[in-house]
């Protein structure tokens, strides 16, 4: 009955063909530890909903950090507003993506950050669809229903209801209540609400009552499994100063 488990145990819920949602906007707030566990789970034909699919710059992967591009071999489809990054998409991932996309084995659905968020929200709320104002007449609208309401053009967007949400928070209590830190909050709260099953990786697990009730951003009802990142892992809370040092070095090396 406890929600606390290992990443491996939590991943047992993921099946071939599932729709997965995860956050990515830089390292912070992106569930890198769970991405590794999902690779180990070895399932295939996944659909990934993710605000960005941005590979880590040089200097990070060598140090054991991962980015969501490690999931690519397991994907059949990506729904994302942003894939790659200005100049830092590693040649390996780029070749991989292009090849898959060209061969029609990997479907890529373009979106915008706002549309992805509203589709996840619509899924959480049980809506059948929404008329969204963004992207009318653009590539986003391609083969979508159009409608004019009160003189304004809209396109029909369908809800997203991922089978499994992989999220990251700063701390959880044993009931699954979550708090985040800074811009690491990201899309994690809406992914937790929209997903049928939510797995969170956290730096720390505390007892109920240790998180101020006003500060809880994701109430435990949206969280099914809580995975504490082991202290020895590069993603752990203990090793954050080290991670910070790597970042500083990379930044200084790049000259800002």
């Amino acid at each position, binding site marked *: 009955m406890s929600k606390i488990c290992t990443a491996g145990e939590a991943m047992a819920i993921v099946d071939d063909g599932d729709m997965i949602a995860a956050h990515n906007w830089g390292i912070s707030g992106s569930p890198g530890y769970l991405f590794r566990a999902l690779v180990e789970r070895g399932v295939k034909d996944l659909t990934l909903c993710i605000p960005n699919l941005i590979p880590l710059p040089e200097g990070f992967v060598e140090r054991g950090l991962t980015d969501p591009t490690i999931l690519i071999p397991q994907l059949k489809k990506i729904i994302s507003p942003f894939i790659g990054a200005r100049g830092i998409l590693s040649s390996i991932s780029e070749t991989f993506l292009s090849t898959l996309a060209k061969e029609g084995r990997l479907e890529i659905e*373009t979106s915008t950050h706002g549309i992805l968020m509203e589709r996840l929200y619509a899924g959480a709320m049980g809506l059948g669809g929404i008329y969204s104002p963004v992207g009318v007449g653009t*590539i986003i609208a391609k083969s979508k229903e159009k409608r004019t309401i009160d003189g304004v053009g809209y396109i029909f967007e369908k809800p997203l209801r991922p089978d499994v949400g992989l999220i990251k928070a700063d701390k959880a209590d044993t009931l699954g209540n979550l708090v985040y830190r*800074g811009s690491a909050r990201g*899309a994690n709260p809406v992914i937790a609400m929209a997903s049928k099953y939510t797995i969170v990786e956290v730096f720390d697990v505390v007892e109920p009552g240790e998180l101020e009730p006003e500060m809880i951003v994701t109430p435990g009802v949206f969280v099914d499994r809580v995975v504490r990142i082991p202290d020895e892992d590069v993603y752990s809370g203990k090793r954050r100063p080290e*991670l910070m040092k790597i970042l500083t070095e990379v930044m200084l090396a790049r000259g800002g």
Partner: protein
Amino acid sequence: MKDRLTEELLAMRAAQEIRPGDYCNVGVGLPQLCASHVPTGAIVQAENGTLGYGPLVGLDNVDEMDLDFIDAGGSFFTTAPGMAFFDILTSFVMIRSGRLKSFLGGLQVSEKGDLAIHSLSSVDKFPQIGGSMDLAWGAKRLIVLMTHNTKDGVSKVVKKLTLPVSARACVDLIITDLAVIEVTSSGLMLKEYAPGWTPHEVQAQTDAQLILANNVKEIEF
């Protein structure tokens, strides 16, 4: 050839559009340079979930860098009194609800204020739209910053877009390295031109027809 505005001067002119009390979003790229010229009392939003953060961390204060304090472009910011964190859903409610002045880059702007911000080729390969279409649609006032011409000298201020549209009839003001142009219901109105240039010379660099504002003048800083 006459001098055009440097990127820094262009950003400084654009930042004059920000008033104390404004909430604004400065897009990745050229608009980001405005951030260092925001007047006291104006508040900057990062669409990944922060409002009112402090100056960016530079090479001289790397020790203030915090892994969890990054802006939409991935730069580290310092804290500031009164800043607030929120999730990306709330962030896009903010963006869509018309409460922000948005500063975006652009590839082309048309006479009707249509904006092209993504080239067809990059969209075809991998989507890199991000939040720009939301920012363009939802802006209380949309200011586009771009060079007036491409590297090959082709005008980016055009009668009709030749690149794929990102959002229609959304641009309020165009600020280029040659001119400040307002999108009005009767067309594009030239309000200011780069020092040393004339309205006639700006028109010669422009595909779209420009209407001269009554008080058309040189850009001041």
